[in-house]
């Protein structure tokens, strides 16, 4: 690791101020950033740790029924506290391993937008809103391809608001070495339609499978997506699985998710 300084503000206002300095970067749970710093893939002059900022931690329900999760909330706390949205709680409970879940945060996961990460699928399938220190960003506008998002420098994710669906399920095909998703599919059924988001598969990062959404919106059953398939073109191809294999898994995991959602 290159040398840097660490700031540990206790208020959001102080964190924003610290991030205003040249070459500053936010530190969430560090479960992605610290390995990246060790590999010298990042070289900030100053890290601004968000772990002491209590005002961006916690879970509550808004007046409109949406489940609001603070950007600094750990995966373990979401697993325990998001009972109002069971598919989301179960997604959080299956990220990495217990020690990773005790440190890693939802804000860090979304800001990082790893193409195989779990939370991006939940946010996109739920049509959630990402609240930052500057604005509110709709899920459909937030993700911008592999490791890229709409976030600007110094912008902190303070909260994520999830409308709670009637039925939902996240099905993850584990990549056992990394513990990320080889392919993960999140299906969420709302009164006005079904949303299907896929992670781990595309070279463009998380995406909505619109054909499956249309089919499931008129008939919410695993059979409704039986005949649908995706092309392996543009899918991630690596030693763990070819593009064709991943495209195939998207169909399988979608059907499993619909079946599990009930």
């Amino acid at each position, binding site marked *: *690791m*290159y*040398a*840097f*300084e*660490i700031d*540990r503000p206790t208020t959001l206002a102080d964190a924003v101020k610290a991030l205003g300095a040249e070459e500053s970067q936010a*530190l969430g749970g*560090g*479960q992605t950033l*610290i*390995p990246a*710093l*060790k590999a010298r893939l990042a070289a900030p002059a*100053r*890290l601004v*740790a968000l*772990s002491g900022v209590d005002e961006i931690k916690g879970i509550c329900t808004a007046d409109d029924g949406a489940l609001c999760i603070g950007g600094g909330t750990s995966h*373990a706390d979401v697993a325990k506290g998001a009972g109002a949205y069971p598919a989301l709680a179960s997604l959080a409970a299956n990220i*990495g*391993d*217990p*020690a*990773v879940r*005790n*440190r890693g945060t939802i804000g860090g996961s979304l800001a990082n937008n790893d193409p195989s990460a779990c939370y991006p699928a939940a946010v996109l399938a739920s049509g959630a809103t990402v609240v930052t220190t500057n604005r509110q960003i709709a899920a459909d506008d937030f993700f911008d391809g592999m490791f890229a998002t709409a976030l600007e420098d110094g912008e902190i994710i303070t909260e994520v608001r999830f409308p709670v669906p009637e039925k939902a399920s996240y099905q993850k095909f584990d990549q056992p070495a990394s*513990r990320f998703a080889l392919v993960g599919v999140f299906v969420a059924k709302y009164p006005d339609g079904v949303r299907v988001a896929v992670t781990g598969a595309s070279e463009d990062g998380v995406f909505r499978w619109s054909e499956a959404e249309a089919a499931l919106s008129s008939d919410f059953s695993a059979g409704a997506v039986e005949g649908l398939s995706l092309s392996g073109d543009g899918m991630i191809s690596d030693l763990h699985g070819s593009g064709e294999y991943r495209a195939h898994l998207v169909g399988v995991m979608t059907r499993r998710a619909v079946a599990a959602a009930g």
Partner: protein
Amino acid sequence: MPEVSMTVNGKPAKGQIEGRTLLVEFIRDNLGLTGTHVGCDTSQCGACVVHVDGRAVKACTIFAAEAEGAEVKTIEGMAEPDGTMHPIQAAFQDHHGLQCGFCTPGMVMSAAALLAENPTPTEAEIRDYLEGNICRCTGYHNIVKAIMAASGQDVSRVAAE
């Protein structure tokens, strides 16, 4: 150089650190508590697991500065002051839950975190909880057995598959 202070195994500990000093470096190099091992240094193996404010964390993936004011517990804090082993440590010995012992500090700290949350876990729950703890020697069966035994459960059914 900034200073950090925390409580480690019930005793106050402080020292000079850099921003980039990892908690595991502070524990091993500043405090000389070398029971916490570094197996991978890439957040994969769990040999470095310690408790920070009661939660299991990988000490190679948290900066020492972030443990300011925290209660930290390492493997050295598990036995009684007179050397009597913690029941989990004793069970690892009784059930041959270790061979080379490199992964053992992390295994014991993860097991202690599990039993604090779930005092009588099933075999499947134990295996799931240890997902982030890698052992290259034992094949895991005797580790699972030891944790079942430490939780007061019958281990006769835990056998090599």
